[in-house]
């Protein structure tokens, strides 16, 4: 992957020239650009433009800074599932500093970072995983004998783009959970003079990271984001609206205990504490580890890890949403449960699947309040629905 799967570049080569030298056909390249359009959620009609833009890209320097964190985000990147996207990206970039993978250590590692920052000032992409501890005068994290905060500020000063990858860089994640003993904060709390794109998740799916970088290289700007700085192409949709178990939610078929009959039939995990109704994440679409499965797919309720402060707002994890402060779902859910106890279960479920599809076509509004639960349809709504079809 990192150097590994990549076919090295000669100096000053553009991607177009590079691919030609590598023997990648125009057709294969366009196919890749088409796939990229799908991941980024832009129209397929833009494929030629994406291709044209990408062709002109020159290999950028990437500095990957690991602060207060667990290395799960780097590990996740190592599992990039789509070989096309992963290889092309990692072929595209020069990873000039990464603690976990780089050969050099100590002064030599510091030196590699300083060189990359100097030679690519104003242009390099800074990927940050991990949070910044501010308590105790910053002494809960030192690197090369310097405070983590100072290292971050220096690296961000001349970065062309800053990506905060993972829940730690997003908002501080687990170490910032109450009572936040180290005063951990996210990258955007420190880097304020330029936009910070947040790739949320604990960890995020690797493809989200790579797609964002490719977006930046392709369009020469960062993707559109929601209020949390999360790219809309990945975080614009709620899990609950894309969930493979949604039909069971709508049909009132809930797992009531792990490994019960419902669980053995793949029913909805809402009663087990699923946070899918409040979580915006590409999990159900991108899935994990080469599209093998995803948390809800494997029977565990969603923890809500792409949402700010989920360690406090989404816990206890196994309590169903209404018990979590700030959510008002219970009445709706009970209402639905009652409504569905009637005879029309199958019909409503079919309707729900249909609306789910409409919804995903329409896109999304980030930060929509609470859950938009289907209600038993009125004749007026029904006719509207039919007009759609």
């Amino acid at each position, binding site marked *: 992957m990192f150097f590994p799967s990549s076919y090295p570049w000669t100096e000053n080569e553009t991607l177009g020239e590079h691919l030609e030298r590598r023997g990648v056909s125009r057709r294969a390249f366009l196919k890749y650009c088409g796939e990229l359009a799908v991941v980024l959620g832009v129209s397929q009609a833009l494929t030629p433009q994406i291709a044209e833009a990408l062709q002109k890209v020159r290999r950028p320097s990437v500095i990957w800074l690991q602060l207060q964190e667990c290395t799960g985000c780097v590990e996740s990147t190592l599992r990039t599932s789509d070989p096309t996207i992963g290889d092309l990206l990692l072929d595209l970039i020069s990873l000039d500093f990464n603690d976990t993978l780089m050969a050099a250590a100590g002064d030599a590692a510091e030196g590699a970072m300083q060189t990359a920052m100097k030679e690519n000032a104003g242009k390099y992409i800074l990927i940050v995983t991990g949070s910044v501890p501010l308590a105790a*005068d910053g002494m809960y*994290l030192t*690197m090369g004998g310097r405070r983590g905060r100072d290292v971050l500020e220096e690296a961000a000063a001349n970065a062309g783009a800053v990506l905060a990858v993972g829940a730690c860089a997003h908002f501080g994640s687990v*170490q910032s959970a109450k009572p936040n003993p180290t005063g951990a904060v996210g990258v955007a709390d420190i880097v304020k003079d330029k936009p910070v794109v947040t790739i949320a998740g604990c960890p995020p799916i690797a493809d989200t990271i790579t797609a964002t970088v490719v977006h930046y290289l392709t369009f020469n700007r960062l993707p559109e984001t929601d209020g949390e700085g999360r790219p809309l192409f990945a975080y614009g949709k709620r899990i609950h609206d894309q969930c493979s178990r949604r039909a069971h939610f709508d049909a009132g078929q809930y797992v009531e205990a792990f490994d019960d009959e419902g669980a*053995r039939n793949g029913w909805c995990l809402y009663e087990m504490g699923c946070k899918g109704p409040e979580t915006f994440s590409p999990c159900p679409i991108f899935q994990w580890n*080469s599209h093998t499965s995803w948390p809800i797919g494997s029977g565990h309720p969603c923890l809500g890890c792409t949402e700010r402060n989920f360690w406090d707002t989404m816990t206890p994890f196994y309590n169903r949403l209404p018990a979590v402060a700030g959510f008002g779902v219970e009445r709706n859910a009970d209402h639905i449960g009652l409504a569905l106890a009637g005879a029309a279960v199958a019909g409503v479920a079919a309707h729900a699947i249909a609306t789910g599809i409409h919804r995903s076509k329409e896109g999304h509004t980030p930060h929509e309040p609470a859950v938009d639960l289907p209600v038993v349809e009125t004749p007026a709504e029904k006719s509207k629905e039919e007009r759609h079809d």
Partner: protein
Amino acid sequence: MTKVVVDPITRIEGHLRIEVEADGGRIKNAWASSTQFRGIEIILEGRDPRDAWAFTQRICGVCTTVHALASCRAVEDALGIDVPPAGGLIRTLVHGMQTVQDHVIHFYHLHALDWVDVVSALKADPGATANLAASLSPWPNNSKTYFTEVQNRLKSFVDSGQLGIFANGYWGHPAYKLPPEANLMAVAHYLEALDWQRDVIRLHTIFAGKNPHPNFLVGGMASAINLDGTATINAESLSKIRDMITRARLFVEQVYWPDLLAVASFYKDWAKIGGGVPNYLAVGEYPENGNWRDAESMYLPSGVIFDNDLSTVVPYDQEKVKEYINASWYDYKEGDKVALHPSVGETIPHYTGPEPPWTYLQGEEKYTWMKAPRYDDKPMEVGPLARMLVAYASGHADTKEVVGEALGRLQVGPAALFSTLGRTAARGAETLLLARRLETWYDALVTRIKSGDTATFSQKRWSPDTWPASAEGYGFLGAARGALGHWVKIQDGKIVHYQCVVPSTWNCSPRDVHGATGPYEAALMDNHPLADPKRPLEILRTIHSFDPCMACGVHVLDAQGREVTQVRVKG
């Protein structure tokens, strides 16, 4: 005396600083300092114990299952929960695959570059490389064409001038001993291992939804089994699991293990370097009937070895684990001289080091965020070497066979294991044992399922209404990097105290009140060379042989921790 600082130590998890004093090409004194603190245990207080696995899992994303499992066990111990056998076997498989994958990544991606000179691979003859590889293993990718292609890719990479992660490596250092062909073979397998690890770890995704950070569950596993279901563990997913297990074993048997022995044969001098602390501790692991409380069912045994004496294995008793903080940036209420058992452990962070930027930490009384765990008041090495030694000394047949094979091929005796090379070899031996054993566990699971015993979860004590008013539990785990323990106290349905004693805390521990150094430090002071203080390759070899995981090592704490967080900055 030359003072040498290596900070950051790269190719590890987390933030580690090593300082040494060297004279005449030898290391005379060493200090290991962990430079990050996160405070996860304090955060657990007042929370639902069923959530603890998710919090503690985030201690580490490299060994991403181990804290979650230890936490589930601790809570299950406290609440008296038995995991049904099928659920327990799924855990054994998940943990087993984790260790296999983790060890392979460690060897190729974190450790190999200490022994393998990437630049020298450019000089290799691909034909001779193919012959070398074929003489070691029947692995299909042993052709001249294959190695030519890898070499060409490497060449244009180096020509491009953008070396990426290979920039500033200590290439050409005289301590690199492999011939160019062996270097090329290892570089090729570095690349192959990247694809391999991505594939085999999907076992986690099927059973637990994702990796890193798969989902666990107190009382079992959330993935229900229904062979006819579409959204459950079914015949199709089981056959995928079976394929991954086979692929895992083949790679370990035909690539990792032969590579390891081939590389080791050029570095036999490292069998006399870097031993260090002569005491080894293993907690036992891989319950083959799924019941982690059943010591008999553990594939690898537990036990303690003192003073490199392989004739005696002492039974492990968790009551004898205690932690000092005399050299760590913490306070104890009773002062710095005492050692506390984790069940009554305290962690009050109190930084007293110099004002950054630091020049040297050596000479400071306190110099790290690691505590100093001791067993029976002695420092202990934990990890694959400790487990292999305990198993070997206990007469564990599979271990005797595999370790015996390695010793025979390298023509060295068991004493060679107490070294940097021994540590690296033991990790490979353990991987081979586990990669072969996965099939046994898989078969045990399938047999259960066939007999209709598909329960993966125990509902009995799920609801807090069924819990005692107060409870206390201990969960251990033979994690990839070594013995792991979680201690939990629960009151009125909430966690009131939580402590972890973690592999890297054992290994990276600082000096204790008796002045005894921890395993990293002791290893660096054991007959340890350092030819060029500006290019401290040898230090990396020994430190990496432990597979450090710093985020794991620095955890913490109990209720008192949040009260006092003072910083005394020294000049």
